[in-house]
């Protein structure tokens, strides 16, 4: 515990600015992944334990596209689309087979996919960690606000993640597609009875959720090292976010991501050894006092 250090930091604008932005950076990538988890859960009532692997595949795909094209933007877009399509296949050929069965059966299918994709990554790209390096467009000196330091790439990352999140929210809340999806989330058979092919919508939702993970992987690729199993730790954090925000709530995922991001950035100064513990503590407290999460609707059964 070093609360003095935390007080000292909060006392200087430069430290506040730097830590606030680093909290946002961590939070926004997490948000992209968690929003996919929460979307899929909200509509399909399925917890996708393989979401971390989709993030990993997104990062590796972006790396490969970047080697081929040399353009970061094309690579990021390509990775998101590729992972989205992979998500559709995953849903159609594997997950849809275990809808309605035990949660544990779904868990098992996801676990198998995690194992297989980790090993395939190792076979295709090798066990050595890879690094994409900063794309030329972003090799700029860091910007300064109020004495705090913010790298330009991270500004791009935050803005991109927020824009994707906003777009997602608009699609779900404002479009015909979104209406059907929300209706299907409440009562799938009823929507099906109206002559709408619900299965297609399920696959589409899974695809969108996967594409979000792919985009997160692509955004992370320039700054994080690519290794088999890299989706592991991010998965558990995205569950924390999903639970705190409320399963099925995109707004909740957004708020919870920022909470976790800030806990990490300020926690590393104030209580560096117990940052992970505090994240789980927050999750436990939310579950004890408001099991449906900060923004979740009470979930019956």
């Amino acid at each position, binding site marked *: 515990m070093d609360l003095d250090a935390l007080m000292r930091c909060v006392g200087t604008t430069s430290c506040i600015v730097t830590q606030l932005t680093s909290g946002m950076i961590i939070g926004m990538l997490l948000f992209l992944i968690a929003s996919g988890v929460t979307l899929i859960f909200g509509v399909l009532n399925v917890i996708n334990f393989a979401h971390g692997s989709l993030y990993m595949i997104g990062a590796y795909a972006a790396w490969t596209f970047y080697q081929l094209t040399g353009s970061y933007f094309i690579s990021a877009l390509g990775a998101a689309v590729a992972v989205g399509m992979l998500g559709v296949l995953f849903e159609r050929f594997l997950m849809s087979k275990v809808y309605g069965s035990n949660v544990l059966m779904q868990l098992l299918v996801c676990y198998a996919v995690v194992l297989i994709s980790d090993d395939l990554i190792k076979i295709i790209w090798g066990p050595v960690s890879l690094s994409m390096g900063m794309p030329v467009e972003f090799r700029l000196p860091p910007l300064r606000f109020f004495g705090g330091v913010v790298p330009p790439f991270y500004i791009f990352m935050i803005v991109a993640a927020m824009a994707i999140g906003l777009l997602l929210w608009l699609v779900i809340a404002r479009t015909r597609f979104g209406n059907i999806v929300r209706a299907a989330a409440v009562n799938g058979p009823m929507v099906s009875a109206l002559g709408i092919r619900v299965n297609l919508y399920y696959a589409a939702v899974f695809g969108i959720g996967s594409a979000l993970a792919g985009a997160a992987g692509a955004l992370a690729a320039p700054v994080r090292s690519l290794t088999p199993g*890299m989706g592991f730790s991010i998965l558990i954090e995205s569950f924390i976010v999903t639970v705190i925000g409320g399963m099925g709530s995109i707004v909740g995922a957004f708020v919870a991501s920022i909470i976790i991001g800030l806990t990490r950035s300020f926690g590393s100064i104030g209580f560096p050894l117990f940052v992970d513990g505090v994240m789980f503590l927050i999750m436990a407290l939310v579950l004890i006092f408001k099991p449906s999460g900060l923004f979740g609707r009470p979930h019956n059964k």
Partner: protein
Amino acid sequence: MSSIDSRRTGRRQILKGAGALATAGVIGMPAIVKGQSGAIKIGVPTILSGRVAVLGQTSVGGLKVVFDKVNETGGINGRKIELVVRDSKGAPQEAAKVTRDLINNDGCQIIIDAEASSGAFAVQEVIREIGVLCIHSNSETSSLTADPKLHVPTAFRTARQGIHDAIGGGDYAAKIAKAKGLKKWATCSPDYAYGRSNTAEFMEYAKHFDGNIQVVEESWPKLFQPDYTEVVTKVLNAKADAMYSALWGGDLVAFIDQANLYGLFDKQASFMVNLGDYGVVDQVKQFPQGVYSGGRYNRTVPPTKENEEWYQNYVKTQKHKPTNWSWENDVAAQMVVEALKKTNGDTNGKKLAEVIKGMTIKTQFGVGGSVTMRAEDNTLVNYIIGYGVSLSKEPYIADFQTSPWEPIYELEKQWKKKQGYAS
């Protein structure tokens, strides 16, 4: 269904379960292979899956180059050496289980333990019980061999030892600190046993050699943490003159990439003991000036013909670049071969341990071309330790300075006393 009814089926289910259990146990058990009088079997528990799979891959590579050559030239007294490699997946209890199986089930007579540290401690306990020859080829944690409480007569180490690196590195860092006036230091190392002890020891000896050095900030990211932004900004806020980091592998690459965004390396000198490895240094795309890296394995250290040939041969036969783990395992394999030659192929643990104790072998990885298995505590000494300046392209390191061993021996003695390891 009435309760009596269900109880009857319940019993039947138990019987069925027990039957299935027994059948599975008998049929599925991998065939018990008796130690064939032909080959000498060497078991290698290591990590082949997950994030540190590269450790297993390059360790096995280091072993293969030696044993393949021995087998090509007729083996030991005509007997071939057979490697049996097993994945423990990085879990210590699996490492213990796998090691026992290698000995009891596969008939391995010798163990080369290519586990990471916590696995190595678990393997050590198995060896304590079974008593075969074991060489820990990757664990750098000092206490494994330095602490007499953990001592096992037939267990040795051919890996670097943390305290040696710390003394050599501290000496080098102090010289640069004096020359450049680096007084305020920050540290950034992974939060686990290796990272903590390595960093504490390095800073202790840096201070020992230069009294002006003080640590103003410590940061401890988690092992395998994907994002280092919060620790980068924390180090940045400390406004130190220099930084020490014991991060390694992909974690180190990610840290450097992320720290680059903040221009961290332009503002301070940085010492990173694990930067020198292939797979790390050649992954970093941008290198600022003044990043110092510890020696791991590099084809130009030492700049001899033997070393370049070894590198070429390794890459040609194993299809990947060697790492620090490769040379450590190369030495382990050579020691085993030498010992077997001396015992005429006898694989008895005690006999092999007797000849390995104090053994010196010729190798380019040693200072002056040889390394020694110190008899006093069963650990390797006189291997090349040092620091140089990192480059972002071949040969990746410049101005490499090899640490002399005399002061290391001297300070190590004092350190052991202080830890209560020696009187």
